[in-house]
Each structure stands twice: as C-alpha cells, then as structure tokens.
C-alpha cells in the first residue's frame, strides 16, 4: 500500500488535472529531473506499521495523515472519516495531521504530484484511504484472532474495540496495538459494503479543527515564530512586468530594527527584526522602476480589445487564432431570428483573509519552507531552481492557510520564490518570514482574468435552441505554466464545453481566442465556471422568456433532450424544496440556475429583492449531487461558503487597471460580501452511491446567474456585465 501512484494509473482524472500533471512534470525537466524522478521527490521516509496515511499511538488515538492542505474546505474531516469508517475507529479518538512533502507517497492521484486543487481532495483519496483504513482494521482482526485462537471471521471491530463474541473477549486498539503492528498488511484489504457505513454520510462527521480555530491556537504561516527569525517585506513594481532600475535604501536603513535591504528579481526586500520595522523600512525605500516591458494598458482598453476580437472588428492572425471547443452541424445553415447577448467579466482578486506569506530557511545543501503550501511538489521544484538543489532537498512543513481560493496554487510559486530569494541572500539557515500586506496581496496580480462572451442562438419552432454560436475571449491561465501555451486552454471553456444545452442543440459553433496580456492571471474558486455558468444560465432564462416558457420547465426539457439526468435531479430537488413556481407575492423574486463543475452538479433557487437598485438576497435553496456524501454538514458549509464567495465577486468584485496600475488596494476599494449581505443557504443533497465528487468549488458559480435571472424576471432587464454593483 506504499506503492507510488503513477499519473497513468489514474482513471477519471479531470481534463485540468491531467494538464496540470503534465505541466508539472515538464516543470521537473526545467530543473534537470525526468518526470519519473519527480515522483521520487523526497522519497526517503519510513512509515509506521499502518503505512503513510494511518498512525495509531499507544493511547489508541488514530491519526489520519492528510496529503491535502486544509484552508477551509473541511477536507480533513472527510479524509479522517473515510479512514475511521473502514477502520471502525472511535470517531472521537481520531485526529488529523498534515503530511510532509513527499510526492512519491502523497501525490494527488489525479495530478500525479502532491497538491490540492480542482475540488479533488476527497475524490482522489476515496479508494486510497478506504484501503488504508481497511488494511489497518484487518491487522487488528488478525492480531486478535491469533491471540484468542479464534477464527478471524468471527472477530468484530466497533468504535476502536476488537471483540470475539464466542469467547466474550474484547480489547481496545491500544491494548492490541503491539500485536497488530507486527501483522503483515493484507495486499487487497476487504472494503465495507457502503450500505453498512455507520459514520460516512451522517451528521457525526464534523470538523476536527473547530476548537483550535475558535481559541486562537490554530497555526498559520503568519503565526510562525522561530528563534532568530527575520521579517521581510518587499517593494513591488506598480506595473506588471516592470523591473528595478535603481533604489536608495538610505532612509530605510535608518529605521530601528531594519537589518538589511536586498534587490531580488521581484523588487526590493527589507528584512528587519519585527513586522512593523520591516513595513516602515519598506515604505521608506525610494525605488525607480524600469517600465520598458511593463503592461501599461487600462482594463477598459483590454476589455475593448476583447470585444473587437469577438465582433470580428479585429481579425484573428496566425499567432492569435480562434479555436473550436464544440462544433457540430453547419452554422451557416442556421436560420430565423437570432437572440444575441454579450457578457463581460472583470479581473477578480482572491483576497484570502491571510495575505500571501511564507517562511523559508536556506543553508548549504538544504532548504526548508514552513507555510500553507497548496502544491508542495511545485513549490519544491520552484525553490530548488532558486537555490540550485535537487527538489528532494527542499523540506516543506504545510500549515493551515487562511484561505486560498486558488491563489496559493501558482505555477511560479510567486510569493514562495520571493521568500526563498530573500532567505538565500540571508543564508545560514536563518528563518525569514515574508509578509505581504493586504495592499501587496491585492496588487500582485494572478487575478481571475477578464472574460468576454458573445452568444447568438436561434430557436426552433418549439422555442428550443436550433443553433448556438458562442465566442469566448480571455487570457489563458495555463499559459503561465512551465509547459507554455496549451493548444486549447480547457480552463477557459469548461462549463460551456460539455454543457447539456449545447448537447441539446443540433448546430453548435463554439470558439475560444486567447490574447496575450501582461497581467498575471490564475484560477479563482471554480475557475472557468466563474464565467461560463453565468453566460450559459443567464442566456437560458432569456431564451425561455423568448419561448414563453417557465425557466425551470425549459431546463427540464433541455436536460431530458441531453440525457442530463443529474442536472434534472438537482433541479427537481431544488424546485421541490423551494416550492417553485412561487409568485413574488412575498416580496421576493426567485431566480434559478444549475451548473456542473468538478464532477458535481448544483442547482440553486435564490430569493432576490432590489433595494435602491442593489440586489438583496434572502434564502438560497441549494441542491447538490456530489456522489457519496461523506460529511453532509461540511458539504452544506461549502455550499454556504461557495455561495458567499461567488456572490461577493458577482455583487462587488472588480480589479481595474489604469494605465497598467491596479486601482484597488484594500477592502475599502475592493468591496467584499459582509454579514448583512449574506444569504441563508439551505442545502439538500441528492442521495447517491457513486464515488464522491467535488464540493469546495461547485457551490460558487451558480449564484451569480441565479441572481441575474431573478433580476431579469423582476425587471425584464438582462445583466450584461458583472459586478452587479459598479464601484
């Protein structure tokens, strides 16, 4: 069970995971490793009797080792429950520990490297952890059978107690531990019949970290305190792509506590003996920037150039080509009056509560990072390049992170690399904690890209789509990967590509074009779905109105046509629980939307009012099909949180550039959702025996179109750009 998992072994990996795996593998080439070597990064550890995922201490406490970072998703609870279920462990005596960075053992089976993303923590661990738990249980059973001279088939395990009814013998895990640890683990442990699950799918599966996160003891990167540690802050260029031309550190060095000032590739770093000294020192720097290669356009100009591409005003070229992502029939034969709509989406910052940060120590032949590492293998590779070591010499201790929403999964490990550059200058294994202020974090790029959609649909005699022409213009996220530009960036089209509405339409001509822009972009919770869900779902309500049909009925017909049974099931569940079609008699207008992402399908029916033109949300009835539900409570938590995250972006989120400089700096200029603006999310889970699918992201993209559809029902006015509330 310690066998390394090869990416090629993994069935069911999503398109993006495969691309990420390939990309990361090629990253290994950049540091002189073959993809095969990548899997042996740091592979030197030995594990206890129960393997790398389960440890049982003499007091009987079961520790589940999580290969996935916990930054809010609740995955630690779910991962622990999978082991506890198969092991028949007492849930109150199960704890969770973060795995070290050892890709050979702890690779995400969907990515091929160690990392968390794509809402895959539970789904890629499902079989692995069931086996780990079942194997440990089998070891206790065999130990008891030997000790009591009883047939193994008569031994039962429940709540960390092993029993033999025939001889009335029983022993706790703690008592049997020395014997069980000597048993050879079974090669193919027998898994439980899901019908006999007693923990999975129950309300007993609750978070294991709520106490530590309610009493201030949970440890984040920001909290790392090490002997002799320095704090670093960096002056960054005001425009993307600019470089340091020259700098004057005279004033900075006069600040008490400032230790040194260094030029590094990303700017000028001040290291000091305290955070406040580092900040004062950084603010006292005088830096001149070389902006020859900088992006100097405004976001309005970037969007305008996208619209010109979509309309054909700017023709495609050999270098900048339209690429088909769905194509059937002959669009030239589409006849009849066409419905047309365009949708514009701005840059969005992740704005996690904990601004990006990292602690690094560099000495001869060794580097150690202590921080919330989302893709440890990538962070090892990028660090190794800077310090000229093999990736295996880079140790990572992963801590809780105060959110990420995609930001900490960065091909360049941007803030990590910055910290390592400084720690390399400092050297001597001296710990350096890089702290970004909120302003640093917000202006540092890696935004959800600007996206423009143009949609043109003709309807058949019954009012259903006969032809669907779709154009998407956006910057490529995957272009930032070490592998370069993929032929078609799936992350830009996922959700439009594969849509049941396109499946139900006889003629489809859907294309993507990916202009180059000097603004760093990245995935933002639910990635392509952040815009494709809106474009598809808001279009559908407008088509339904044109066809004179109820939006739920209209969707039902299209899902039936497309054979989209899971879409139909979540829609029906949400409609039933929300009492659709209800009138606006109670003062609320309801909007519906449905979207599939990360293997799960979510339907929402949102109550919306307009107060002074600003949407006000009431209850949001949510239905999700995420396969086997491990922790219903944490699935609900992710629907609540995902909805707030999506709504925050849709209501207020907007990063704008003026002549290339970011105009927002902090939460006073980048407005986010607050308590009084949050809806009450009611979650219903479709019963399913399928393998678990994603939960962390699928709750995010549905709310924006649901709100737009409610506003459309209320006012007859469609929404053609987000956010709803312009600054």
């Amino acid at each position, binding site marked *: 069970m310690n066998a390394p998992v090869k990416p090629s072994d993994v069935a069911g990996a999503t398109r993006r995971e495969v691309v990420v795996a390939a990309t990361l593998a090629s990253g290994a080439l950049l540091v002189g490793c073959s993809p095969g070597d990548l899997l042996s990064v740091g592979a030197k550890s030995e594990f206890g009797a129960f393997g790398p995922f389960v440890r049982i201490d003499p007091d009987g406490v079961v520790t589940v080792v999580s290969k996935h970072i916990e*930054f809010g998703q609740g995955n630690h609870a779910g991962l622990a429950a999978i082991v506890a279920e198969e092991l028949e462990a007492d849930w109150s005596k199960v704890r969770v520990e973060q795995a070290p960075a050892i890709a050979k053992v702890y690779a995400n089976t969907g990515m091929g490297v160690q990392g968390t993303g794509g809402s895959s923590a539970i789904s890629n661990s499902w079989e692995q952890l069931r086996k780990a738990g079942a194997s440990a249980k089998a070891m206790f059973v065999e130990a008891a059978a030997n000790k009591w001279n009883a047939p193994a088939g008569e031994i039962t395990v429940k709540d960390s107690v092993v029993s033999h009814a025939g001889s009335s013998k029983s022993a706790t895990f703690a008592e049997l531990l020395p014997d069980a640890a000597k048993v050879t683990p079974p090669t193919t442990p027998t898994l439980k019949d899901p019908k006999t699950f007693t923990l999975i799918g129950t309300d007993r599966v609750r978070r294991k970290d709520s106490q530590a996160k309610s009493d*201030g003891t949970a440890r*984040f990167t920001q909290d790392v305190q090490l002997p002799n540690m320095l704090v670093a802050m960096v002056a960054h260029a005001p425009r993307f792509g600019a470089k340091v031309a020259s700098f004057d550190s005279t004033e900075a060095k006069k600040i008490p506590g400032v230790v040194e000032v260094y030029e590094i590739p990303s700017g000028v770093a001040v290291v000091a003996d305290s955070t406040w000294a580092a900040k004062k020192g950084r603010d006292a720097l005088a830096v001149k920037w070389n902006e020859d290669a900088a992006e100097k356009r405004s976001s309005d100009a970037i969007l305008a150039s996208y619209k010109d591409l979509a309309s054909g005003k700017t023709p495609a070229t050999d270098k900048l080509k339209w690429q088909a992502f769905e194509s059937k029939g002959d669009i030239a034969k589409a006849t009849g009056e066409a419905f047309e709509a365009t949708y514009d989406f701005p840059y969005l910052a992740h704005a996690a509560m904990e601004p990006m940060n990292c602690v690094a120590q560099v000495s001869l032949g060794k580097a150690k990072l202590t921080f919330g590492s989302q893709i440890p293998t990538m962070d090892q590779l990028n660090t190794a390049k800077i310090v000229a070591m093999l990736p295996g010499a880079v140790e990572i201790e992963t801590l809780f992170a105060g959110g990420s929403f995609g930001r900490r999964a960065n091909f360049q490990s941007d803030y990590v690399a910055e910290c390592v550059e400084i720690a390399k200058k400092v050297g001597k294994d001296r710990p350096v904690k890089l702290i970004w202020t909120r302003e640093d974090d917000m202006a540092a790029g890696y935004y959800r890209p600007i996206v423009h959609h143009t949609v043109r649909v003709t309807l058949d005699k019954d009012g259903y789509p006969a032809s669907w022409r779709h154009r998407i213009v956006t910057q490529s996220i995957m272009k930032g990967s070490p592998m370069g530009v993929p032929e078609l960036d799936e992350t830009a089209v996922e959700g439009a590509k594969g849509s049941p509405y396109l499946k139900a339409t006889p003629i489809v001509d859907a294309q993507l074009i990916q202009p180059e822009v000097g603004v760093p972009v990245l995935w933002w919770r639910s990635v392509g779905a952040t815009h494709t869900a809106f474009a598809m779902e808001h279009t559908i309500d407008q088509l339904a109105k044109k066809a004179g049909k109820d939006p739920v009925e209209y969707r039902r017909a299209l899902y039936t046509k497309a054979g989209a049974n899971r879409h139909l099931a979540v829609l029906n569940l949400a409609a039933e629980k929300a009492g659709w079609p209800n009138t606006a008699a109670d003062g609320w207008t309801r909007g519906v939307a449905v979207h599939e992402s990360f293997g799960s399908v979510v339907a929402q029916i949102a109550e919306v009012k307009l107060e002074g033109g600003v949407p006000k949300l009431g209850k949001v009835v949510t239905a999700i099909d995420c396969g086997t539900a491990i922790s219903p409570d944490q699935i609900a938590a992710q629907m609540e949180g995902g909805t707030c995250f999506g709504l925050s972006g849709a209501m207020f989120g907007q990063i704008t550039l003026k002549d290339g400089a970011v105009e927002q700096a902090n*939460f006073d200029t980048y407005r986010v959702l607050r308590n009084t603006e949050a809806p009450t999310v009611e979650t*219903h889970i479709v019963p399913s025996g399928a393998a678990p699918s994603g939960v962390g992201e699928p709750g995010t993209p549905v709310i924006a179109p649901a709100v737009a559809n409610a506003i459309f029902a209320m006012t007859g006015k469609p929404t053609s750009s987000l956010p709803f509330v312009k600054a």
Partner: protein
Amino acid sequence: MAMTLDVNGKPLSVKAAPDTPLLWVLRDELQLTGTKYGCGIAQCGACTVLVDGQPTRSCVTPIAGLAAAKISTIESLGGAHPVQAAWVKHDVPQCGYCQSGQIMSAVALLNQTPKPSDADIDGAMDGHICRCGTYQRIRAAIKDAAGLAPTTPLLPVAPAKV
C-alpha cells in the same frame, strides 16, 4: 523605551516604539498570535481585541495610548467560553483566520447585550469580513450562545441511504 501593557490581566513590559500598532506588539513581541493581521486599515476586523471591554481594531491602535487600558485577546477566553463553545458546536470556522476577531466582537456584543436583536448582531458583526462565507453560522452561533431560538433551522440532514 519600555512601557507596560495590561494584557489578559497581566502587566507586560514591551519594548516596541510607541507608534507601533498593538497588533504587532501582541503578535511579534508577546507571542499572542491568536489575533490576526488581515488589512491593516480597520476594514476587516481580523485583528479585533477588547480594550476596556470595547471591540478595538488593534491594527490601527498604537500602543502609545494604551498604558492605562485593559486589553483582552482571544487567548483570554480560555477555549471553553460560551461563545467559543457555540462556535465549535456549529462548526463555524472554515479557514479560521478571521474567527478570533469575529469571536471577540461576539463576546463584547453579548457582554453588553445578552439577548441581541438581529439589528444588534448586524451592528456588531458587519465590520468583520469572512472570505470563506461563514456568516450564517456566525449568526446561528451567536444566537445559540445567547440562548435565542435560531431564525432558520440548521441544515442539512444527511441524505437518505441508497
């Protein structure tokens, strides 16, 4: 120049310059890291502590004016305070980074208004940002800690077996 601060009932000598925000003195010098940095401009509430019982944004409060003040941080609550117990019961935290601040404001609210109205909760909590979106559980936990009936039933229930 050393000064003495009353933090969690103890007089503590600190060396930081008087213009240093309380937040960084708590975190860097006194190693009380439960109080978090989120924005530095009193917009997000992550750094909230109680100064003489009042919720205060420590990121914009220089220590110079605090010589006579009683400062309470998340560490002073002991872990089993009724508000903390309600937070755990409702599994409020997700990433958890903002929760120390949220809890300190909830504690101050219930100290001053043991049975808060919805408007009271709005007023006390709207200065706090949670990017994970734990807002509805925060409201539920405050009401539970206050012994008030929840406005909405706690959902979900586990799906039926298949």
